[in-house]
């Protein structure tokens, strides 16, 4: 159906306004990050400078923090993607009796705030010697992200037609081969979506590493953000803003990279197809 031209233009205008509204809060971040005397006040920096960025990037502790964040986020998303991909297969393809309950139970667990289970997790980590290790944090974060991961993955897999797989099976391929060669290529957008979702969550998490890590050299960048708060509560807004911008970059890169593979974007519509 062809829309009237005036209606289409109006739609463009509305969308442009929405985009603008979404951009405005970022203005402060952008301005403050190039201003040495930044404050919460929005003002055009008088002498724009990249000094904030330089001091943030050249600080070896910060680099260490970003590296730690990266290690945590990469392991977390890798574990979630691999495990939930495997788990989604039987949940999507097999006629299992309890699968609805399984899905319900794991998704409901996500309404429990992670803070509520941190103390038991802290004790668990200590008794198994897992505390103060990036890997164990990553596995814990992976576990808390699994419910979402499985849900999304299952729905993506539901929308891959079974017929393709059956054809492969006639040629003698088993489930694993079918998964690798038939399903996986078709699910690249889904896999990327789950990865981005989990990666950004793990990358930004403050409280889990704060409680579970001990040694300063293991701290991810989220924990190191306190460095911009002085003894007397003075905040170094300029460097904080620059740090924040740098902090966002990996997620932005990951997202734009994934866009190439996501012609249709983000499909979580499997539920429609039963």
């Amino acid at each position, binding site marked *: *159906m062809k829309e009237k031209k005036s209606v289409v233009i109006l739609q*463009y205008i509305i*969308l442009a306004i*929405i*985009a*603008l509204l*979404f*951009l*405005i*809060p970022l203005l*402060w*971040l952008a301005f403050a990050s190039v201003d040495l005397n930044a*404050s919460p*006040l*929005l003002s055009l920096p008088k002498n724009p400078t990249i000094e904030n960025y330089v001091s943030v990037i050249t600080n070896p502790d910060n680099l260490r923090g970003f590296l730690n964040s990266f290690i945590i986020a990469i392991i977390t998303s890798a*574990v979630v993607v691999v*495990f939930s991909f*495997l*788990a989604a297969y039987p*949940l999507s*393809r*097999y006629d*299992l009796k309890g699968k*609805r309950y399984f899905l319900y139970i794991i*998704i*409901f667990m996500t*309404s*429990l*705030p992670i803070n*509520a*289970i941190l*103390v*038991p*997790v802290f*004790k*668990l980590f200590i008794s198994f010697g897992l505390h103060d290790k990036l890997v164990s944090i990553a*596995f*814990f974060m992976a*576990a*808390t992200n*699994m419910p979402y991961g*499985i849900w999304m993955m299952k729905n993506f897999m539901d929308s891959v037609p079974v017929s393709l*797989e*059956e054809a492969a099976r006639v040629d003698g391929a088993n489930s694993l081969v079918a998964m690798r060669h038939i399903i996986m290529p078709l699910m690249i957008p889904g896999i990327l979506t789950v990865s981005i979702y989990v990666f*950004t969550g793990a990358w*930004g998490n*403050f409280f889990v590493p704060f409680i579970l890590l001990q040694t300063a050299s293991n701290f991810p960048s989220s924990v190191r953000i306190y460095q911009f708060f002085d003894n007397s509560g003075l905040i170094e*807004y300029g460097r904080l*803003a620059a740090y*924040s911008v740098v*902090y*966002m970059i990996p997620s*932005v890169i*990951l997202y734009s990279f994934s866009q190439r593979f996501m012609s249709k974007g*983000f*499909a*979580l*519509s499997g*539920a429609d197809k*039963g």
Partner: protein
Amino acid sequence: MRLLRISKQGRKALLFLAPTIALLLFFFIWPVLLSFYYSFTDMTLSGSKSTNYNFIGFNHFVRMFSDPLFRTSFANTLIFLIFSAIIGQLILGFFIALLMRNKNRHFRSFVGMTILVGWIMPEIVCSFCWVAFFSKSGTLNTALTSLGILSKPISWLVSFPMVSVIIANIWHGTAFSMLQFQAALDDIPADVEASAAIDGANRWQKITRIIIPMIKGTIMTDAILITLKTLGVFGLIYAMTGGGPGTKTTTLSIYMYRQAFGSYQMGYGTAIAMVMLILGIVLSACYVKFSKIKL
């Protein structure tokens, strides 16, 4: 969907699920069960009750009924949920996805990117942006006073704290819903809409009678996921207002934190968390019943 015989399927399914189950059991279900147990004790984080705690049955849950702060946080949670998740993220996300259909590809990706920035931004950075936006000398006041809408600046975080955190959360979360709806709308066959046009349906009827029923499943899945996610929002509110001023933005997850980690009342804190779990289940069940869709 019958690819294999059932008997064999069960065993095979277990193999595929084994890593997940092992991971969940060890890192998630076990701690959750422990928390569940703590919620029936008077355990504290420090002090003599930290090691010698007692089983006190349903005491904490009874106490909640007469705890005015619990009632306030419960109400705040519902307000935050309805406005930021359902009205904000879900409806706005749907609306944007609807408008984005059949638009210029570059325009689409530009608009999409601006909305996505909020989503991929770490919570803590997100809250700094919004604190700066709402502060007395911040962006919003500068804009409104220079346009002459306000005669003098308002401190939004003090005067309208709930509205402020709701807006911030909408900004942070809308992309998730938008992406889901975009994908779902792409799947609607063009001929279905075309035939509706021939039948003389107007724009509104087309949305309510054709589009919404067709993507009902996505709407419900999205509603459940963002409801559960919004229930647990902690860092954003904590960094923006600390649950204040007073208790104005204290949601259950903030209250849980204050009890367990601020007042060291681990037992009561975990009991509040259990209520959140139940609330999540009840709300999801309502959605399922309301939309009459089986997952």
